[in-house]
């Protein structure tokens, strides 16, 4: 998918409720070469109407054995509903995709098709 983004000269910006510190950590850990934006107070997320109130997250202090949770503190957190938006060079929104299951990412084929339709 990154080839299509390069082909159409599209910049990726990924925003989440992660703090600057967590975002920097994730960017380094996953070797990401695009911009991560931090919205820890969910201001932008709320502005766009993308707040998910009941998402469950394992909060810090979990005890793991080989990365498998043995003693967890699951808590209800607020976070963004996974949403992808394609914006053209005039600042107009051309495509929106929202996940109705927060475990899943946007389907790559769908994104590729949308990019092609918008900028092809």
């Amino acid at each position, binding site marked *: 998918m990154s080839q299509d983004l390069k082909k159409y000269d599209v910049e990726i910006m990924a925003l989440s409720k992660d703090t600057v510190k967590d975002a920097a950590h994730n960017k380094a850990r996953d070797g990401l070469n695009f911009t991560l934006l931090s919205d820890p107070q969910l201001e932008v997320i709320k502005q766009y109407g993308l707040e998910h109130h009941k998402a469950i997250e394992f909060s810090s202090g979990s005890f793991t054995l*080989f990365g498998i949770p043995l003693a967890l503190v699951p808590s209800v957190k607020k976070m963004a509903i996974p949403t992808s*938006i394609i914006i053209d060079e005039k600042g107009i*929104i051309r495509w929106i995709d929202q996940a109705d299951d927060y475990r899943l990412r946007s389907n790559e084929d769908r994104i590729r098709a949308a990019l092609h339709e918008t900028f092809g």
Partner: protein
Amino acid sequence: MATVALGLVSAGLLVVVVTWGAYLASIPKGNVAARPVGSIILQLLGVGLAIVGVTWPLCEGGAPGVGLIIPASLATMMGGLFLFLLTQRKTPIGNIKVSVGDKLLAFASQDSDGNSFHSDSLAGKRVFLKFFRGGW
């Protein structure tokens, strides 16, 4: 008889732990199953084995000892947690404040280097803006 019970409980715990591990491994790879039927079945199996194992001594007129209760509880809690989390996976979409054709809503934020960011800097650029849930 004690070995059967212990074997069942251990098997149950092993199934639960391995299923959890496989599921968690699929997350960074980005191929989480949309309908994780196999994982659900395995978690139910693991919990089932653990419960059968821990109640096994009762059939002999005995009682399960701590050596059975602890791993059985662990298996049941972890398996139960997995199944419960899956019931909560649907997101409440429908409140989104923008539609196709709208201008993007101007916003301010910070990038991962701590620099201020404003969406005005995106003028003239094509952007794929992804809102995601954040790190695990």
